[in-house]
């Protein structure tokens, strides 16, 4: 008992002591500090910013701008002229070295100088020129042009290179339209030569803009020059290979963490970083390999490590490393940019940049922090720790972004050139240019045309990002080609069925028939407005014109002989609301590679998959009307118009090229085809035997313009949730689809 008491007392005493220390211990230092502060008076160097009690002056007396302004005599117009006169050469900006007025007259048109006989042009430069000539910006009339591109090959300005063009200076000065390079764009991949590799082009570029690879921040004139990636002779002109990432793996780590394989320069410019790489190499997950074996007299300069490095270098296969590494080091070479950059990007190997002062490709529009790790050459030794600290979610996102950027802007010469031109166009049309979101998110700036709308919610791509939904109704566009003769014609039934849909806002009848418009009373009375538009030139492409009367986001495109019920229309629209960037509809078709004929084939057979949904009965976003009319080249559109065929295939090519996804087929109505064919008028183009053969030809023509086959197969059809399930038909919302 006593012992217990004693323990109790000891315990409580202990507890009290603990409490004492706990409370006092924390408190005391603070108290001592405040005492300390007071004793030291106001200013100790290492203390937080004090709270002053004085009434302080505001930094800006309210009338200062006022008084200043009235002291200002120089007119703002004069000031602009002064600026324009002063800032030339290395200080060129759009405001001082570019004549905007040339672009306001005819829009953004690009002129390419005619090629002179005897001028040799490299394949790469030829590709650049033919891309421009094939683009919608091209004009052959210099009087219309806003931008001028030389036909003199300026890509390789390394004097030691066989591609080097001599006497460029005189040739350029003699051009009649040169005008000191004003509104000219000069493409360049290599400048300077051994040993200093300056960025000088070896001729006076005057006020011309540079689209240059490996450009340094020091020489880069922001908002004026364009930094382009270094690409090889083999870089394809159009299309281009897709990114190597086929599927996402989670966790996203690969066999290697960080790899590099490349030349080492023993001396001279750019050698420091590569010479130091061996410090970081660990032969396990960080594999950084260099070789001294390059150039004629490497043996002369070779250092103590060369033999060991060369041996290690030969042990690894570059391609294997590229595919199996999470990060790829992109150190500077002699010049700031290197081929490694595009290689890593395509391989979904997140580039780790070690090239201080390199103005990264398309830096004006691409947010490289989302796809690369921007390292600092000075902190080379920290690089492994840095990349290891990057969270796996971030790696997953970086990797996907490499693929997006590769396919959007880099995979072909065409994309690189068009991106360059679009960047300059954005500057010219300042208030109607793309926001950073449009450049850096799917589908990218080349497919998101800002002239369509400045509002992101008007495009099919940004609903999720902005947290908004498309307009809850659709506009039906019926393509009419045959005259109205009887009241039982399919078009009238179709009109009535579509008008009954609860989601229908209006119906547009596009009158592409040679006969004059029928009188107003001939159209049935409907609850929604019916607008009849007489087709321009009555050509096929007019069905995809971006009519201003289309006010909804969704367009229901219909042929005049399409047979659809109201329920089917309703269901297709509800599906489209979940997939606003795709084509959602009924008649599905497929493509296949015909290996005997070595060409693409087209089939309308009922198969287990499909890659097109025809626009005779399909819903898609109205933006694709704009894209069809403004993005596609005249050559393809006029082909469609001449054949009066294939417009639906072309639309499918376009939408799949943008989304990289297949269209969506919704519930098959029984014997859709037979009904359609049976009821179609005799004049229908479907009855024409040539029709099918033409469609094969179209496919191949389109594929060659797109630089590949954009169509994607799908095995999925979307049906109403209880479709053909064994439950009472009364429980089914879209029961009519089954009844048909």
């Amino acid at each position: 008992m006593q012992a217990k008491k004693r323990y109790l007392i000891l315990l409580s005493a202990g507890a009290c002591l603990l409490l004492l220390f706990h409370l006092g211990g924390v408190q005391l230092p603070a108290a001592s500090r405040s005492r300390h502060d007071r004793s030291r008076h106001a200013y100790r160097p290492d203390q937080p910013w004090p709270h002053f009690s004085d009434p302080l002056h505001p930094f800006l007396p309210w009338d200062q701008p006022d008084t200043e302004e009235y002291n200002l005599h120089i007119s703002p117009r004069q000031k602009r002229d002064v600026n324009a006169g002063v800032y030339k050469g290395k200080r060129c900006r759009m405001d001082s070295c570019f004549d905007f007025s040339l672009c306001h007259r005819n829009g953004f048109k690009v002129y390419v100088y005619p090629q002179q006989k005897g001028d040799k042009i490299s394949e790469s430069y030829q590709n650049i020129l033919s891309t421009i000539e094939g683009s919608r910006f091209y004009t052959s009339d210099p009087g219309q042009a806003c931008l001028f591109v030389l036909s003199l090959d300026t890509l390789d300005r390394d004097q030691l290179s066989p591609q080097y063009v001599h006497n460029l200076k005189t040739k350029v000065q003699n051009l009649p339209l040169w005008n000191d390079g004003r509104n000219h764009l000069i493409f360049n991949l290599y400048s300077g030569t051994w040993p200093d590799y300056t960025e000088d082009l070896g001729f006076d570029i005057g006020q011309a803009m540079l689209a240059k690879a490996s450009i340094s921040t020091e020489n880069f004139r922001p908002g004026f020059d364009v930094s382009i990636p270094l690409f090889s002779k083999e870089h394809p002109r159009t299309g281009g290979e897709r990114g190597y990432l086929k599927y996402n793996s989670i966790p996203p780590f690969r066999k290697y963490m960080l790899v590099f394989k490349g030349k080492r320069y023993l001396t001279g410019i750019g050698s420091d970083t590569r010479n130091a790489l061996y410090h970081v190499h660990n032969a396990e997950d960080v594999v950084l390999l260099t070789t001294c074996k390059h150039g004629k007299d490497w043996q002369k300069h070779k250092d103590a490590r060369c033999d060991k490095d060369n041996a290690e270098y030969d042990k690894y296969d570059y391609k294997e490393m590229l595919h199996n590494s999470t990060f790829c080091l992109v150190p500077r070479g002699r010049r700031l940019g290197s081929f490694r950059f595009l290689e890593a990007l395509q391989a979904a190997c997140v580039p780790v940049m070690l090239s201080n002062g390199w103005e990264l490709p398309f830096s004006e529009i691409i947010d490289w922090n989302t796809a690369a790790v921007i390292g600092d050459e000075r902190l080379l030794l920290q690089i492994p720790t840095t990349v290891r600290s990057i969270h796996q979610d971030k790696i997953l996102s970086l990797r996907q972004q490499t693929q997006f950027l590769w396919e959007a802007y880099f995979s072909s010469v065409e994309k690189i050139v068009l991106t360059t031109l679009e960047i300059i166009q954005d500057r010219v049309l300042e208030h109607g240019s793309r926001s950073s979101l449009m450049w850096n998110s799917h589908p990218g700036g080349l497919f998101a045309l800002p002239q369509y709308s400045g509002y992101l919610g008007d495009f099919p791509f940004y609903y999720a990002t902005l947290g908004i939904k498309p307009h809850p109704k659709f506009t039906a566009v019926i393509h009419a080609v045959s005259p109205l003769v009887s009241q039982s014609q399919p078009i009238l039934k179709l009109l009535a069925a579509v008008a009954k849909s609860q989601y229908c806002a209006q119906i547009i009848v596009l009158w592409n028939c040679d006969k004059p418009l029928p009188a107003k009373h001939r159209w049935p009375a409907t609850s929604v407005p019916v607008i009849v538009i007489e087709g321009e030139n009555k050509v096929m492409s007019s069905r995809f014109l971006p009519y201003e009367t289309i006010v909804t986001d969704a367009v229901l495109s219909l042929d005049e002989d399409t047979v659809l019920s109201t329920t089917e229309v309703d269901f297709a629209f509800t599906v489209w609301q979940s997939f606003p960037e795709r084509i959602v509809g009924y008649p599905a078709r497929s493509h296949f590679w015909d290996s005997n004929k070595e060409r693409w084939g087209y089939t309308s057979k009922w198969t287990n998959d499909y890659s097109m949904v025809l626009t005779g009965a399909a819903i898609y976003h109205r933006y694709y009307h704009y894209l069809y009319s403004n993005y596609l080249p005249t050559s393809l559109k006029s082909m469609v118009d001449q054949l009066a065929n294939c417009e639906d295939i072309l639309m499918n090519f376009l939408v799949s090229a943008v989304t990289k996804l297949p269209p969506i087929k919704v519930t098959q109505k029984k014997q859709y085809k037979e009904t359609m064919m049976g009821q179609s008028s005799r004049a229908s183009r479907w009855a024409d035997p040539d029709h099918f053969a033409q469609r094969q030809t179209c496919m191949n023509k389109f594929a060659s313009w797109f630089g590949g086959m954009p169509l994607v197969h799908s095995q999925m059809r979307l049906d109403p949730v209880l479709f053909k399930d064994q439950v009472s038909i009364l429980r089914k919302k879209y029961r009519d689809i089954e009844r048909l």
Partner: protein
Amino acid sequence: MYPSGKYSSRGPALIPRMKTKHRIYYITLFSVVLLGLIATGMFQFWPHSIESTADWALDKRSVHDAPLVRLPVSSPIPERGDLSCRMHTCFDVYRCGYNPKNRIKVYIYPLQRFVDELGVPISSTGLSREYNDLLSAVSDSDFYTDDVTRACLFIPSIDVLNQNSLRIRETAQALAMLPRWDKGMNHVLFNMLPGGPPDYNTALDVPRDRALLAGGGFSTWTYRQGYDVSIPVYSPLSADVELPERQPGPRRYFILSSQMAIHREYRAELERLKEENGEALLLLDKCSNLSQGAAPARKRCYKGQVYDYPQILQESSFCVVLRGARLGQAALSDVLQAGCVPVILADSYILPFSEVLDWKRASVVIPEEKLSEMYTILKSIPHRQVEEMQRQAHWFWEAYFSSMKAIGLTTLQIINDRIYPYAARTYEQWNNPPVVKWSSVNSPLFLPLIPPRAPGFTAVVLTYDRVESLFRVITEISKVPSLAKLLVVWNNQNKSPPEGEKKFKCPECTAIDGLSLDQTHMVERSECINKFASVFGTMPLKVVEHRADPVLYKDDFPEKLKSFPNIGSL
């Protein structure tokens, strides 16, 4: 204390064997503890008053107590800013080091009062209210360090916000005297009003070596991209005026011009626009005869009619922000605060925080030359875009313009993002207002990829103890050609998973009444859904009316030609 008194009075009876010595020992021990506790208690309550007197003493601090530093005439002057400076050439990253938080450390020099040899101060205003606010905010932030040796970035306490109040040469000398100046390396200067008459340069004229400049009126020719930071010109009205929140939508006026000091050429042009378009435009100017006592900064007039500023800004869809003598205008801040879309006419101006903010979503930039076309240009902008811009404009003000704290910390964050680019804030973080952050959906798998079939799939089967059912599932699923791996999650703590072919019976399974089980089950699951929705703050699930089937599902078509003939036959 209670027990000690009790024991001491009844001690002999309760603790007979305890010696007096011990007793005294215990009593002393308790008294000490007791006293200690009381003292601590006193400290707990008293210190508040002690601290508050200390605070009060702090508040009593005056800028006039700052040590006086006399600048010799011959004191060195820094070089003019080097236009080629970039982070990799003029900034010492080694001072920032590797740090797991990826946050730079910022040191603020203590306040000093610099005077020339005659005792005249280098600045007519000394420390301004705004610069003081900025420095306090930095010192209260996570960036701050009081350890000069650990700092990555240094902020001088010399106030250069307004070049007008500075003596250029002496200010430069004062900068050079800072103990860690070292050619301005890793120093940042905050300046909102650069230049002076007659040319009004667009960057601070004070020679500053390699110091980076957070400047409020850069033109493309003075801004060192990726090195300097373009900041707003703070508007004092931000603190003084609270505007009621207005939802984006149509406004009474279409275009409003409220700046007082507009060059007469431009004012003439605006008046011409007004003549053409009438009521849609409101052109305000300074009031000529205001009653006494009215703050002239808070009033604007049009033909004798007086309007409250900045309240009137809320009545217009677009508000003109024209360049003045300087490119940066405090009016931009007022306009954003009002949720009015700024129409910026200032050629070659580098917009505030343009390195991270997407101004195309919040403003309209028109070349000065096209002022006369302003109306047509603005009319072509869709309504919904105007609304998005109004929302975006107000959000920019709230997050980045509203206080010196916001301006200062945003600047530091931008510099921080350059030093640790792999940990930089994202476009969405900078640009999306909270309402978008909440409602937007950003899938972590955003790349449109159709994965190949080759790697197959992994089946994960959750099981409790219905072993027969488990075996049936396993048998069925293992027939699937693209199955790569099958993972069974054994979710029963009381039994160990069966081994090999051993089979278990499940007597309970049949005993439970199917229906009642079903009902409790549903109730539980509904509760779950409600709980989850409340945790998410919203219902993330969406209802759709479609389901995916194979292309030829239930079609009148030979079954053997179908890829997936047996679906729906279960």
